[in-house]
């Protein structure tokens, strides 16, 4: 019970920050609080939000995944080449997801079995996957797909843009897996105290490997959305996406030291960044100042989160 209240108090902080930001923008510009703009923000947030699902799993397990942007580019390129070779759309999508998941599992094997620090393994993979994407395409963007595929980005379900529906569905599934399954509990356990988890008989190596597989898979899903959105797969896509995903995760209250965090927080974190960028564009704020503001908000959000934690302790 007390744990639930603490969780709610914590969540309330992030939600309150997002609501306040929205209220502020509503006061400052008449274009912010309109249905088309809010759908627009959510659509723009979807890619970062999906990458951040895998990142949240990884960070809760006490690791980090720097390769998500490159894996996203590689999955996108695999998808585009498959579509260009006239594969059926579901088959091409499956190939892209498999490419993402496989790359993630390689990270996991290096970390869990090879005992490489996650930072190093995924830093290496960041370069390997990027190189592979450039090699496959000869550095050129691959483009123009049939309209059936593009419906993933431009289609609507009950008037709601498809990317938003897809994002919510992924969060629902990922949340259930994280909170209601044995795998989910092990993810928290490994992040909280890996040695204790291992001693209590959990196959830690296997589950650690799977965590990075999840991260590769969500990067693959994001790649499908991004490719549909731009009608192009770029081998140079996704540069610095790992930083946005880490930011969304930590703004959402997940601890970089592992063992705690939630996907509910992460989606609020991703939305906070999306709303901030959207608002700064609507206000016509200089592009340089935008970078400064976004960076400062990330620092402030995590600082306040730490202060709240200290008070609790």
């Amino acid at each position, binding site marked *: 019970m007390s744990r639930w209240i603490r969780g709610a*108090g914590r969540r309330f902080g992030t939600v309150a920050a997002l609501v306040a930001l929205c209220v502020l923008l509503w006061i*400052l510009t008449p274009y912010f609080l309109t249905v088309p703009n809010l759908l627009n923000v959510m659509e723009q947030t979807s890619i970062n939000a999906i990458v951040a699902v895998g990142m949240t799993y990884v960070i809760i397990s006490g690791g980090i995944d720097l390769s998500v942007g490159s894996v996203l580019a590689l999955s996108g390129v695999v998808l585009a080449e498959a579509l260009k070779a006239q594969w059926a759309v579901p088959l091409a999508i499956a190939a892209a997801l498999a490419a993402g998941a496989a790359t993630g599992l390689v990270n996991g094997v290096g970390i869990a079995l090879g005992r490489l620090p996650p930072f190093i393994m995924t830093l290496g993979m960041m370069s390997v996957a990027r190189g592979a994407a450039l090699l496959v395409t000869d550095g050129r963007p691959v483009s123009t797909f049939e309209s059936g595929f593009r419906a993933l980005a431009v289609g609507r379900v009950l008037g709601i843009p498809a990317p938003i529906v897809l994002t919510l569905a992924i969060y629902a599934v990922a949340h259930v897996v994280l909170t209601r399954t044995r795998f989910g509990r092990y993810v928290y356990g490994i992040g909280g105290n890996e040695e204790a988890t291992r001693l209590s008989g959990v196959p830690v190596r296997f589950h650690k490997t799977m965590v990075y597989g999840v991260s590769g898979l969500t990067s693959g899903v994001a790649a499908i959305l991004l490719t549909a959105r731009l009608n192009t797969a770029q081998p140079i896509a996704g540069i610095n996406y790992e930083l946005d995903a880490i930011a969304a995760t930590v703004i959402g209250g997940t601890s970089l030291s592992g063992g705690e965090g939630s996907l509910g927080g992460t989606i609020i974190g991703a939305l906070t960044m999306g709303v901030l960028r959207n608002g700064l564009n609507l206000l016509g704020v200089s592009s340089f100042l935008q970078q400064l503001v976004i960076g400062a908000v990330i620092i402030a959000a995590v600082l306040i989160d730490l202060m709240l934690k200290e008070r609790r302790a």
Partner: protein
Amino acid sequence: MTCRSSASFATSALKVPAWCLLFLASFSVACNRGGDGARGGKPRIALVLKTLNSPFFNDMQRGAQEAADKLGVDLVVQAADREIDVERQMQIVENLIQSGVQALCLTPSGSKEVVPAVVKANRANIPVIIVDTRLDPAAAGQAGAKVVSFIGSDNYEGGRIAAQAVVAATNARANVGVLEGIPGHETGDSRLRGFREGIAASRGVRVVASQPANWERDQGFNVFQNMLQAHPDIDTVFACNDMMALGAVEAIRAAGRTGSIRVVGFDAVEDARKAIQDGTMVASVAQFPDEMGRVAVEHAVRAVRGEPVPADAKVRIELVTKQGSR
């Protein structure tokens, strides 16, 4: 106890917004350029650049701002943090559509990738003026993207002019190392095509190596340094922009070969003009980005007023050498 402490984090959590509020409000007061959209009926026009970290786009912005001031236009200038971030550029366009701009001038970060963004502007009935980099005709055609006007240099012709400069400077005998832009960018591809065709007639001019350095100065340095390791016989560099050319100049200096390798660039930015005066570069093809910015705003204003707009406006190009421009 627990409930009480949770209430206290709730109150302290509410300080988050207070912070953000002050923070954002102070900036928005300082920089809000007509976010309310109601400014005495002034047309509100957006200029979305590839980046603002480049003298080329700074000049374009300056030209556009001058035209906007003269014509009484409220100009909003935005750019992604990095030149290659097409997804971010698309987000900016979407956000500006929401903010009710009446015309959009856009320098595409990717010829194919921004097509969906142009289609969105079309749907919102916002006239689109493309500047500097053309849309990919096939992708635009397939998506039905409509552009009111294109304003830019003839990059193919620029590549030919650079080729002539190389031929003239080397008496038609040269081993050329080429630094390319990001592969698949229409601008760089056209320059390269023009350059290759320009040297085709001179059999003594050979391209011995050609590698992308992604438009950037530090990559120009590294890529050319590596190229020189593999091909010590290189005596001439053609770089598809000046940033990469200036990187090559530094690599040549580091190798102690200043003076024995000629460098030809593209864009004639200020640093390149200085390098030409110092003799570390031979020539650069000048574009006039300020003129592009000016014409873009003029065309946008005509489109907003419903006046006819020329579909294609070529901005002049010149070769800059130590002797001057021609």
